[in-house]
């Protein structure tokens, strides 16, 4: 298409370049152009948060961002997390320890949302955790164990 535009987005520390249709969503840029399929799509109204990533360090729903809007910015996806728990960050390890996931489909988005949340607030209450995650839907866990997972991550900071 003639309207296609070149974009350059730093994804998980690597510079990526593609020529894209201006309407291409960031989530599809990540999944289909970069083949980073950890970021999922669960709705088409920006309600579920399965597509949550970090954009310049802040959590965003990558279905609400056009790839061209991310031009020149930095994106971190679930694949870009790494930490001292056998490669996992404290948040990832918290989800593992506390059974914070079942089917795993909402999980990457949930982990990224928690990662963003804990950058903004280092000591949230349970109510603040719940409110901080209200943009991310999970249909399996009932959220109690997700709250427990976040608590675990707060109590066990990354050893790295």
């Amino acid at each position: 298409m003639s309207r296609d535009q070149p974009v350059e987005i730093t994804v998980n520390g690597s510079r990526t370049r593609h020529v894209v249709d201006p309407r291409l969503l960031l989530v599809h840029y990540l999944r289909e152009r970069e083949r980073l399929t950890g970021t999922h799509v669960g709705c088409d109204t920006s309600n579920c948060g399965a597509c949550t990533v970090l954009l310049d360090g802040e959590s965003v729903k990558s279905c609400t961002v056009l790839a061209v809007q991310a031009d020149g910015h930095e994106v971190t996806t679930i694949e870009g997390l790494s930490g001292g728990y056998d490669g996992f960050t404290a948040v990832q390890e918290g989800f593992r320890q506390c059974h914070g996931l079942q089917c795993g489909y909402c999980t990457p988005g949930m982990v990224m949302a928690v990662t963003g949340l804990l950058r903004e607030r280092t000591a949230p209450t349970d109510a603040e955790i719940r409110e901080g995650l209200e943009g991310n839907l999970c249909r399996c866990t009932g959220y109690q164990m997700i709250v427990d997972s976040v608590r675990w991550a707060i109590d066990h900071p990354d050893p790295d």
Partner: protein
Amino acid sequence: MSLVGARVLRKEDPRLLSGTGTFVDDLAPPRCAFASFVMSTEAHARIVSIDVRAALKIDGVHAVYTAADFAEFPDVPGGFPDLERPALARNSVRFVGEPVAVVVAEDRYIAADAVQAVEVDYDSLPVVTTIAAATAEGAPLVFEHHGSNVVTVVPMLDDLERELERCDGRAKLHIVNQRCAAVPIEPLACLADWTRDGLTLWATFQAPHHLRNYLSTWLDIPQTQCRVIAPDVGGGFGSKIVWYPELFVAPVISKRLGRPVKFAQTRTEAMQQMAPGRDQEHDIEVGYERDGTIKALRLVVSQNLGAYPDPTGLGLPVLTTWMAAGAYKIPKVETSFRTVMTNTTPVAAYRGAGRPEAAFSIERIVDLVAQRTGLDPAEVRRRNFIPPSAFPYETHNEAVVYDSANFPEGLAECLRLIDYDAVRAEQVERRSDPTAPLLGIGLSSWLEIAGFGPNGALEGFGHLASWESAQVRVQPDGSVIVFAGSSPHGQGHETVFSQIAADELGVSYDRIQVRTGDTATVVQGIGTMGSRGVPTSGSAVKVASQRVLDRAKKVAAHLLEASEHDLEVADDAFNVKGSPGKKVSWSDVAWASFQPLAIPPELQAGSLEERLFQESPNFSYPSGVYGCVVEIDRETGHVTVRNMAIVDDCGTVINPLLAEGQVHGGVAQGIAQALYEEMIYEPTTGTPITSSLLDYLVPSAADLPGFVAGRINTPCPNNPLGAKGIGESGAVGAPAAVINAIVDALSEFGVDHVDMPATPEKVWALMQGGAE
């Protein structure tokens, strides 16, 4: 050390937490095209014309197909005779969202453009969306040739009028158990790749072998050339055991175009196409004595099936009427049901499938008896419980024999967890303070039917059989592969079956791998539904593992020159009891088992493998007692769940962490049904009002409380594990606890029932004295 019963961390998690799981839409083979369906915008209409010319002109569009292109294919399988679904709508449409045409394009964006460009001209017909409208005199017919919208009827043999009349009091309710959407966070998706070697279909599905069976029949190809793979599946809750036309259309397109074809539903499509559940109306009446004992129960059920009767949808009221009496010893029980078609999305299983509806009605009416007699709801329950000594307990239906339960113990534990007496005292105080929020306490002492099942249990829903398979294979190095017929969608089969096999075989948990969901490698399978994973499939793993161990002991005994009866197995080795140090490792035994000269003559090389089809003599009956405390804002009618105590009895627990997770998720869906969720259709046009997550309120973490969990254990006598299943429990038990709490809080306004979802608007109106 036994792993069964231990809080073992999941094997699934490392891949799912690192974004390296494999869901269907993650797959992208070379030359993969994308299919998107043109959905009917009419709930009932004749198709006058379909114009695909503009769509075909779009760059990147490969093809557009309509029913005319599928003329050689029959209706999709599994339906009710003469009321079946076509692959694509043929001449008429019967619900909004019904697939009318399919476009295939280079990518999903172009496919979406092409869908918009297809012009369908409809001639509208009158619409029915509710049971009342569909059964009214002269109602428009969903299928003209059927002559009625009623599909099946099971009448009542005795209306129990005499028994009801003889009682001190009668209590009755009309209950609407509203339509709910399952909303797995991963919508339906499939990828069909039909090559010269045959078809492979990746599908997010709960029963891949069943899909393979139907698909190969429908496509008229041998099953050897029809492979179905369910990779990681992003939730299901019953909505992924339905024979969606999309799953049948995609392979045909792949064959025609000679390239892989992917279909991945958007959420808006899913809200119109994925089968919702519930949607029953009940008329329930009991006769009771002044002491609160219930003497007779009559339950009349109507099931809204939607536009095309689904086999599971037809089965829902069967299960509801079976479980009508719940946890109670009621001398006379009579039930009836009818199933009714409407111009709405076809209804099928949703977590609990027929049992939440039964539990809700009996638990509501028991509370109404308490209200009428002035007795405490806990006391009315105690006076009517089936006593622990009465199990196995024969019910009003000969197919239903409760295995085991201890309701008084469960109730006592729940009351303790919720601090019942203290909350009752607080409630009395609150009532004298008109500025404080209303406080209510609700109980639900429920029981459900699960562990599907004995022979005949699933055949009625179209499945091949009711067993589940397991194949346990020892590799030459002593590691073990377990192939399980039941294919998971979040339950943690890899973890739980590894625990079971590790205990039986004496092989380390980390040296066991569980494989599921591939018809090319898993011998046969039925699926994951009806809380059958552990009781049926887990039992298959246990028994198959035992048989492998028996033969492994013969090899070990041969190598050790000892008697197999003197061997014990632990920590990846066989030891001779009483002879420390005399042992042989599992890996040496495994290696030898493939060497004809190293094994006893009665064994063959490769004999450390067992394939087993586990049958069950009866269902299992998980039960529990849930307690809910709600607060209601007097100004707005907004309900807040302050406390939710959940005491489950699922018999043997394999992994307490996972069992608790299952209950939490089910309870969350139960609270959601009680307070938030309802699929709504505009009654004259049949247009779904709740067709996205903007309108359909799936609760977030901020909307739900924390849970306090307890547990009792009455083992199931009907399977080798003693397990009853846990997947559906929460969704069965929670709705009544929440609504009973709300009605309790509103009782000072003379309220005796509120239908779900108890929205602020409804609750507020009841507080203003407006009857529902």
